């Protein structure tokens, strides 16, 4: 009887293990889809180095006045906007916000949005 129970238990564990392997052993962050086909660089590069790009671009813009539209912060927010219940892009207060999806998961705090608006400005002037 004990042996049967042990076999059953092992089977259950193995089955559940197989089921989990289809998915992943740990929950992964749900990264919201972005607009457009291609980011400024490929996805693996952006995942690892987006912070370096942001840092480099911020110094170029603030100190040297170099403002390429492609790498503007507002453009990041525009492509990666996540619509809320009202259809408007959510701010960083919402856990669905693109940046928060991963940063919450990795427990890495960012302070970008204490000064920058976390929702895109879609006006023509802002996107020039």
């Amino acid at each position: 009887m004990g042996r049967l129970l042990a076999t059953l238990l092992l089977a259950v564990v193995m089955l559940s293990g197989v089921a989990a392997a289809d998915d992943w052993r740990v929950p992964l962050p749900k990264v919201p889809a972005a607009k457009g086909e291609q980011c400024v660089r490929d996805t693996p590069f952006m995942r690892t180095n987006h912070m370096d790009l942001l840092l480099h671009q911020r110094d170029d813009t603030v100190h040297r006045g170099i403002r390429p539209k492609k790498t503007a912060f507002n453009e990041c927010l525009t492509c990666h906007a996540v619509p809320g219940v009202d259809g408007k892009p959510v701010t960083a207060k919402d856990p669905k916000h693109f940046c928060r999806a991963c940063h919450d998961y990795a427990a890495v705090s960012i302070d970008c949005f204490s000064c920058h608006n976390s929702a895109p400005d879609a006006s023509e002037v802002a996107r020039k």
Partner: protein
Amino acid sequence: MTFIKAPDCETLPQGSRRHFLKGLIAAGAMALAPGVTLYKFAEAAETGVSGAVRWGMLIDINKCDDGCSACVTACSKENGWKGAGNTRTDSQWIRKVTLTNKSSGHKKSLPVMCQHCSEPPCVYVCPTGASFKRADGIVLVDKHICIGCRYCMMACPYKARSFVHEDVEGQKPHAPRGKGTVESCTLCVHRIDAGRQPACVEACEKDGGGAFIFGDLNDPESGIAKALAQYGGTAIRADLGADPGVRYLGI
């Protein structure tokens, strides 16, 4: 994997040999085509701002009405700063000041904002390098490295800077601002980089008396340089030797 080199002292705008050479090239271009400002703007968008330019403003206070605050309203709207109800500490990038001549009682109103000094006291006292002067003479706060110590506010003889005391939401993308940092007039740097005039200048032209002349102080063919050569101009507290880029007529 490609690593991105963090900007170091070598690549920062001030005092770099590369920028000095670039300035010489820009100066040559200007000599060939004086007054063609679009060329300068186009160059700035690609390679960074040039030290050959120095932006400034000349304000004719005889054209500035006492009751008009079109420049203040336009600045607030453009850059998204507004009062949080604390009149003593609310941000004020530009304000109207009334001057009274004590002997005659004559009163005159004029706008005061960051004077964009060529020898800016706020830059000299900043312990982190957050307060800095761009190559084209615009004095700014890099809020990424501002620690909110407010030394610059004490050093500024024009009371031009404000400290943000409250959380801010709904900022304009071109004018990020947040609690714990110092801010002031940016001369609408985002507009200048796009080849446009500051919001206050445009608003005064449209809704006010047209008191502002904006332009390149270094270009003898620019409207501002010509007006200064013809009529002169007063810097407020010129005795301090900060050499402001904002000058006034009629003080």
